[in-house]
């Protein structure tokens, strides 16, 4: 099975990514008390191998927060995974800004909290826009290879499809020279729910 998205659907998804990441950037800025820059978000529908390359260097070590979000009435097949990826240096400077020791239990929980706040505010905006019930689950913090994190999430979300939908935006914390990737990785069921609510049914 190969799913394709047409330009109109990708535009709508890009708009969702833009609203979600804009809300997330505002929330992060309030949390840190500093300006947060936001690059123009992308909505990419790519073959799996290319999806991984589009996100970054698979071998690079990253700090990551994985926040699964249930979509709709709790059907496990419909989910959006919010994924935050930071360099180690950026994770450390965020911990310092929040006054906690990096790579400690407290540091990890602070990163998880950043993931929580960004993810919850982004999906809150999406829920308002689409009228869908979106349930964030507890965040999971891990330090590992970028490819291992992203491919494992994609394997779980994309399943048997050959095309991965990647909605990503890059956030920059000013005065801390810290950039992070903010990704929304919906399951096929999750995309169908989102597009359905926007009147752009995924079944083509």
């Amino acid at each position, binding site marked *: *099975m*190969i799913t394709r998205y047409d330009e109109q659907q990708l535009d709508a998804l890009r708009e969702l990514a833009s609203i979600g990441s804009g809300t997330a950037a505002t929330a992060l800025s309030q949390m840190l008390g500093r300006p947060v820059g936001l690059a123009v978000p992308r909505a990419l529908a790519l*073959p*799996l*191998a290319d*999806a*991984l390359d589009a996100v970054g*260097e*698979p*071998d690079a*070590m990253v700090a990551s927060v*994985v926040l*699964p979000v*249930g979509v709709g009435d709790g059907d*496990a097949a419909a*989910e959006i*995974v919010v994924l935050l990826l930071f360099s180690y240096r950026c994770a450390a400077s965020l911990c310092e800004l929040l006054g906690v020791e990096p790579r400690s239990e407290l540091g990890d929980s602070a990163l998880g909290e950043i993931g929580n706040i960004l993810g919850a505010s982004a999906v809150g905006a999406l829920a308002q826009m689409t009228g869908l019930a979106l349930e964030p*689950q*507890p965040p*999971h913090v*891990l*330090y*590992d*290879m*970028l*490819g*291992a*994190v*992203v*491919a*494992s*999430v*994609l*394997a*779980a*979300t994309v*399943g*048997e*499809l*050959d095309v991965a939908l990647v909605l990503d935006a890059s956030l920059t914390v000013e005065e801390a020279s810290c950039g992070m990737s903010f990704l929304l990785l919906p399951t096929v069921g999750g995309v169908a729910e989102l597009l359905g609510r926007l009147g752009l049914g995924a079944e083509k």
Partner: protein
Amino acid sequence: MGELAVSAAPDDELVSMGLGSCVGVALVDRERAVAGLAHVMLPAANAAYSAPAKFADRAVPTLLACVERLGARRERMVAILAGGAQMFAGARASVAGLDLGARNEAAVREALADAGVPVRAAATGGDRGRTVRVRVGEARVSVKEAGGVEVPLWHPHFHADDLVETP
């Protein structure tokens, strides 16, 4: 991800970077410089179309056919595995519930057993990502865990006792 590569050029190196729940399957001819490496994502295929190495049950026969086309012989062939980690151990949601890593490894081992190719070394399981490298000319396979250093996993002169085998 979901791809495979084969080579009979001694200077080539085949690499799968950042394997998490995915499994890197290396096939090596012990006597000739022919090797292949597949990046398996999921245990079994139902779908008609897909990347060549995405599903374990299809990736193993496809990889085998590709290395045999380059002159490898099945009776000299050995398999080396890396990856199959449980990246999100402890998370409640569906990204963790599947235990994909272990299921991927089991599916790969089953397909290799069906093909009569022995698994001679494996760096699998755990909760860390891995990068696996196959040096075609020397038939050497090495693995690096996230945050660790590159260590040899297998080469043709490894003594049987030295083999790394995770249960």
